[in-house]
């Protein structure tokens, strides 16, 4: 399948640098801030943003992890391994905190909806903000990101693949063109695909 690179390693690094600066600017520092990464790649991006914050302002912002599977409304799986849960770990709690949710790709918005439902089970945050590496459009819910690494208008028959050093051995965002004749995917399904 033809694949086109959208962001290379440097692009990813610059985008996350800017996102970290925007978070600091928007929140006037990092008081009461907690960064929550959505499994799998959102967790790694969250850690990188936290590392950037530590570097720029010498502050340690707690990072939590969230598996939203139990809150999804599109729970359909293609294989056994997709029923596996990953650890949700919110050691510091989120009561009264400013939460920055982090994920790799923003698409239909359903993952973020599920993540917000999950978060409020842990307390009442003062605010929930959203940081995303790539926004590919096609929202199905009224959700938008506060911090965006890159906007990329896409077609339904395109898939976005985010690769990160931690999980895939390289930092890269690629666009994959699916053959429409072979497989017609609904946005929901390809959303699932990205997360696999």
């Amino acid at each position, binding site marked *: 399948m033809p694949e086109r690179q959208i962001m290379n390693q440097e692009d990813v690094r610059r985008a996350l640098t800017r996102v970290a600066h925007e978070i600091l600017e928007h929140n006037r520092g990092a008081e009461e801030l907690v960064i929550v990464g959505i499994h799998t790649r959102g967790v790694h991006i969250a850690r990188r943003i936290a590392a950037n914050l530590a570097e720029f302002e010498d502050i340690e912002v707690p990072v939590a992890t969230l*598996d939203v*599977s*139990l*809150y999804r409304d599109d*729970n*359909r*799986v*293609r*294989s*056994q*391994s997709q*029923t*596996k*849960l*990953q*650890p*949700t*770990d919110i050691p510091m709690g989120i009561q009264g905190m400013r939460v920055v949710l982090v994920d790799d790709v923003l698409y239909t918005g359903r993952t973020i909806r599920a993540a917000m*439902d*999950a978060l409020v*089970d*842990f307390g009442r945050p003062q605010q929930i903000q959203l940081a995303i590496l790539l926004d590919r459009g096609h929202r199905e819910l009224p959700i938008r990101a506060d911090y965006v690494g890159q906007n990329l208008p896409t077609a339904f028959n395109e898939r976005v693949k985010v690769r990160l050093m931690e999980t895939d051995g390289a930092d890269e965002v690629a666009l994959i063109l699916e053959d429409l004749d072979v497989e017609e995917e609904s946005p929901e399904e390809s959303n699932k695909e990205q997360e696999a």
Partner: protein
Amino acid sequence: MSLSRTIETPEISGALEPEPAPRKHVLDLDDFSREEITEVLESARGMKEVLGRDIKKVPALRGKVVVTLFYEASTRTRISFEEAGKVLSADVINMSASGSSAEKGESLLNTGLTIQAMGVDTIVIRHPHSGASHLLAKHLDRVSIINAGDGLHAHPTQALLDLYTVQDKLGDLGGLKVVIVGDVLHSRVARSDIWGFAKMGAKVVLSGPATLMPPDLMRSSGSIARSPFASLVEVDTDLDRAIEGADVVMALRLQQERQNAGFLPSIREYIRRWQVTDARLERARLGAMVMHPGPMNEGIEISNSIAHGGSSVIEDQVTNGVAVRMALLYQLTIGAGLES
């Protein structure tokens, strides 16, 4: 008893082909690969986190219906399935044989078909006859079946929670020595545990009166010698010897009626030779853990001080049982969406 046949099935390494289809039923551990067991245990870890929250409720199985169909008495298994389902927001309906149309002579199959016709998603069944859950799985095509104990055959969810409990405390299961003590012959728990621990690479030693050991495991030239378990399962009727260096000691419940049936000379002799005691546990590895599937006969197969002592993980087993059953209910229900 189907033990010899089951144990010969050479599916021990179980490296399944890429991307196996979602599982529909949980009938025994013999068709679980090591990878699949590992996945269940990992998911159970996520479920345990849910159980530790202030608000123990997630919407995962909203609108799904789970029926627990119990033809035998049970406290922990039934309640833990009920709690597991409810924490996941499924509707759980409990049915027991007494007070149901089973008392009017309805067959198991017809009861199953009736429940299926009501649009239930999952049936959790316990039955005194081995193979009862297989029967339902074979004839009902729209529900998932979970075996919560069938006769002398299998109790897979108990074995999975045992694996989880050991892994939680000791880490990797490979290379551990697990001693199962007591009435292995009549124990479905032991049978599923043997499958589970052996698949995960632990060494299983069975100990107890020779009359209560599965006969095919007693024969050195028997089927076990040819089976893939040959190097992983052994029998040693001398508990003092068997327990040497053990990482895990599991006592099984001794049903007192076994004495009347001639399996035991006397309960007192059993206590003297096979009770898990402090003195015996000293021979095991330092920090060895003691397990029991419950319900316990304290003072018979396990001493009071061991049952409630520092090495006992019996209560952890119960807690972990809820998490493991949540993982299975979730997996089966979500996986079932694929087929429709």
